[in-house]
């Protein structure tokens, strides 16, 4: 699914003394079935851009189009619906929910869909199997190591079978070996026909052969676009 951005601007705290312009007009397109990485230092606006593409927030002005659908003007309800079916998210701090088992964490995004329980459990177990976590399925999430938590986060992002995977600084909490492994997983995901959008300031990520395209941002504008 083609993602098109047209003259996107995002202003926080508009009209207040602490007004802050995070994105100052970005236009670009992301082709399907490719791995793109947005790089830049913190505060460059890469995370904000990603959250707008992922329907987590709305641009102040400009237009975001997902395939044929303009999503930047959709009301909350529909936005959630689009988000749920189109995007899978992997966050910098994994954002897994403590107190839940590994399996429950993976199933979480599918709860509001009301699938039959057995079907959902099977799907979640299959994913865990695929990521070598089958034996940990019923453990509390707190028992897992950083690398395992990351893989659980990927499973969770995939449970609703999204077309587009969004990962915000996915390797920030991983050592270089685990980062490498993560990039291999990303390669597999692209192979299965998914679009992947990453942000990172980790060379391990944006210099990786897995990444097809690197967009560099600074102060809310695109500096360079390679690939």
């Amino acid at each position: 699914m083609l993602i098109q951005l047209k003259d996107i601007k995002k202003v926080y705290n508009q009209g207040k003394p602490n007004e802050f312009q995070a994105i100052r007009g970005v236009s670009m397109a992301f082709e399907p079935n490719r791995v793109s990485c947005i790089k830049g230092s913190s505060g460059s606006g890469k995370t904000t851009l990603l959250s707008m593409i992922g329907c987590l927030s709305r641009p102040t002005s400009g237009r975001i189009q997902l395939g044929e659908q303009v999503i930047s003007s959709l009301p909350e309800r529909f936005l959630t619906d689009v988000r749920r079916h189109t995007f899978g998210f992997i966050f910098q701090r994994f954002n897994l929910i403590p107190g839940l088992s590994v399996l429950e964490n993976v199933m979480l995004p599918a709860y509001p869909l009301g699938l039959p329980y057995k079907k959902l459990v099977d799907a979640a177990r299959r994913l865990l199997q695929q990521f070598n976590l089958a034996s940990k399925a019923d453990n509390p999430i707190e028992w897992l190591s950083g690398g395992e938590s990351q893989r659980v986060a990927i499973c969770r992002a995939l449970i609703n079978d999204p077309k587009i995977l969004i990962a915000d600084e996915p390797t920030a909490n991983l050592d270089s070996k685990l980062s490498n492994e993560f990039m291999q997983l990303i390669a597999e995901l692209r192979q299965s026909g998914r679009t992947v959008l990453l942000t990172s300031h980790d060379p391990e990520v944006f210099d990786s052969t897995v990444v097809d395209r690197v967009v560099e941002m600074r102060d809310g504008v695109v500096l360079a676009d390679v690939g």
Partner: protein
Amino acid sequence: MLLFLRKQKYLIDYTLSSLLRRKGKSLGLLAVYTTIVFMLASVTLFTHALRKEAGLMLQASPEIIVQRMQAGRHAMIPADYLQRIGRLRGVMQKAGRLWGYYYDPIVKANYTIMTEGQSDTPLTEIVIGTGIARVQGLDVGDYLTLRSQSGEAFSFQISALLENDSELVSADLLLMSPKAFRRLFSIPEGFYTDLVLSVRNPREVNKVAEKLSQLLPDTRPILRDEVLRTYESVFSWRQGILFVLLLGSVLAFVIFAWDKASGLSAEERREIGILKAVGWETADVMRMKFWEGMVISLTAFLIGYLAAYGHVFFASASLFEPVLKGWSVLYPQFRLTPYVDGLQLATLFFFSVLPYIVATIIPIWRTSIADPDAVMR
């Protein structure tokens, strides 16, 4: 429909997991909540049943009692008042009653002595209520000595005990013959404690009472309806007092619940953010929080109610006994007949479950409408 149920079950799954994560806190909350419901339910059930039972039993009490007043105090009424009343329209029967109180210094209890039967009842025989029998350790055939007005000791043989079933009205009763009563308390013939009139038609009661106060200006008629009303208000009042006492703890609980719910911790805020980010709608988050309130309050309500039912109707409200007993030595042993109706349950439910759910949902609503991208920052 099936889809809806499945969704709710998932939400309950989630809610239970997050409650179990804070196990100590959740269980503590549940325990406090259950205790409060238990207290409220016990008071309501107990007073309601007692009021109902009193009403049914006292339905049979005399329609009008005529008391003579002297200087604002109850005084003996001369028997010729019966003649002075003469023939009042609507009065079916009229009779003088002899009764009084006897303080037993040995067990420090007050007895109510009533007279029964005709003059041929043996002078030295009495019938006592089971309460007295219990306190004194007496049984049929035993002797009970009462000290008369003039200081003489009178011995009576117990010929029978009043029925267990009627203990609520008869625990402290001591029945003797009128003759023995007069001798014991030095009451001359020709005087009664009060007069009892029975009136067939309830609509005539007020008219009779009116005529009585004209005929006998130094008397006070006490109507059965007033008696029943007194009981209604006495129990309402005692219930009210208990409620006021409970109000403190209820308020404390409400503050606690409000604080817990409204002071969303950073952790909970983050959790809601994550849920929204992974695809939950605001409505889903609120439904989940609704279930959280529901799980706690429904469980507390049901356990509290069941415990209260057992307490009041199986354990004879043993926790309330000290309150009701006050300073009395004689206390009836009775098992209340349960009077529970849907309205009562609904009221209890309404006042115990709803406020909590509202208190948990409202603050959540404020956070969950925020943009979910907060988790990424």
